[in-house]
């Protein structure tokens, strides 16, 4: 896959992408989340 024969490597390569994109999706979905969180006193 992707010109890489060893599954241990292409899996890592794909996981890097998936985790980066996953972070973006998570951040976007939770953009307005956590409003129950009490604000910090200065």
């Amino acid at each position, binding site marked *: 896959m992707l*010109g890489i024969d060893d599954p*241990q490597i292409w899996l890592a390569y794909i996981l*890097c*992408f998936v985790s980066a994109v996953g*972070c*973006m999706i998570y*951040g976007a979905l939770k*953009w307005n989340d956590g409003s129950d969180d009490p604000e*910090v006193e200065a």
Partner: protein
Amino acid sequence: MAVSTPILGMAILIYLMVVFYLGWVGYKKTKNTEDYMLAGRKVNPFVLAFSYGATFISTAAIIGFGGYAGAFGMGVLWLVFMNIFVGIFIAFIIFGSRTRRMGSNLKAVTFPELLGRRFQSRFIQGFSGALITIFMPLYAGGVLIGGARFMETALGVDYNIAVLILAIIVAAYVITGGLIAIMYTDALQGALMFIGMSILLVITYVKLGGVVEAHQALTNMAHLVPENLAAAGHTGWTTMPAFGSPTWWTLVSTIILGVGIGVLAQPQLAVRFMTVQSSRSLKRAVLSGGPFIFMMAGVAYIVGALSNVYFLETKGMISFDVVGGNIDKIIPEYINSAMPDYFVVFFLLTLLAAAMSTLSSQFHTMGTAFGHDLYREYIMKGKIAKTINITKAAIATTILISVALAYILPPGIIARATAIFFGLCAAAFLPMYAGAIFWKRMTKEGATASLLAGTFSSLFWLTFVHAKEASALGISKALFGVDTILTGTWTVVDPILIATPLALIVAVVVSLMTKPASQEHIDMCFK
């Protein structure tokens, strides 16, 4: 170097002017201790994500690990996955929210202070501060050397002067502007790094004929692995090293697990969770944090590995041979020969930004650890002057120590400094830190025992067993006449795999044997 010095000089000048402007903004906005130590706990999520990433990724990560990928291949991509999944996702969502909340409940302004107040122990705060004060200058010295070497080759500045210039520039905005200045300059530096690395990735794949084609060409080169590397387990650039071989152990234990998990307990990173106003900011920061790390570490390692294809096509040699075995030169050599001139200028700026963003946080963390945690809170029991003034003096002192180390330490030891610091932090802090924020039953005695067990077992393993540090330090040789007191596979097993589990067991056993903290205190910590 194909780049004309005036253009590069101009680019650096503009960059430095913006950096100083941000430093000045930080100075103007700093009104109290929380501003100076925690950027007022009101940092924007994007600034947090870029600042965290830019601090995390130093020149060493791009040049050093990129070069490692050039020599040993793409197995190190597992580290990128760990950096994103553990270093960003788990760190921000699981550790970050709790840390932020507890930090604000306990009014802690540094990482050691958070631990110290959670366990009601000045000793924990002082000892943690001392550990950072003693060992972080090694790590900062390493980054300083990297930055100064860059200025030496790119600008033709004398190395010794470059160390001073770099330290003075960073010191100026760190001491005056505190963490506000640091985080804003970090965000600028992070943005530069992001653009630089994106261009690097695209040009590399285009030059090598596409993603699959480039990888296939690299896969086809497996028979070119030098014999001595093959004997140590190297099987090619798109395959994992032979299971259980020395190369495999170094990759998996030191690099993937050591750096990948060690990041959770880095004081200069953990403190950043306390700089935002709400858990929502942490969740928003994940959006930019994940792709940022991918574009830094992922690109450096992919490009490092693929440099072999480029050098084989242009020079008929693998990267390792092109640089005569000095793998730190693989990325610079590749950039200089394969990239267009305008990009070389930009990339040099990227590297300078990477060095400065890591250095600034190191200086700030060492200064707060020494001035606030060790001196003011532990030695003087909190009964002396203002934290900001003491911290400023301590930052200046620790910078001088780092500069001195950059002059006197041999390159062999410096190269190990980052690994030593990461491993030590993981063993000393991780079980105690995780217990502090997740386990209400963890006691002061359990935390203290875990801190001491992690610290000393890690140092013991480094000094007497793990071959890379033990032979460089030479203490085992002097005492026992042998480089390492154990032999075989043990000498390539990283201290983190021994010391961290030990510290964890000690933390659990001692906590269960001792009296828990008062319910009132626990309620206050976890409210």
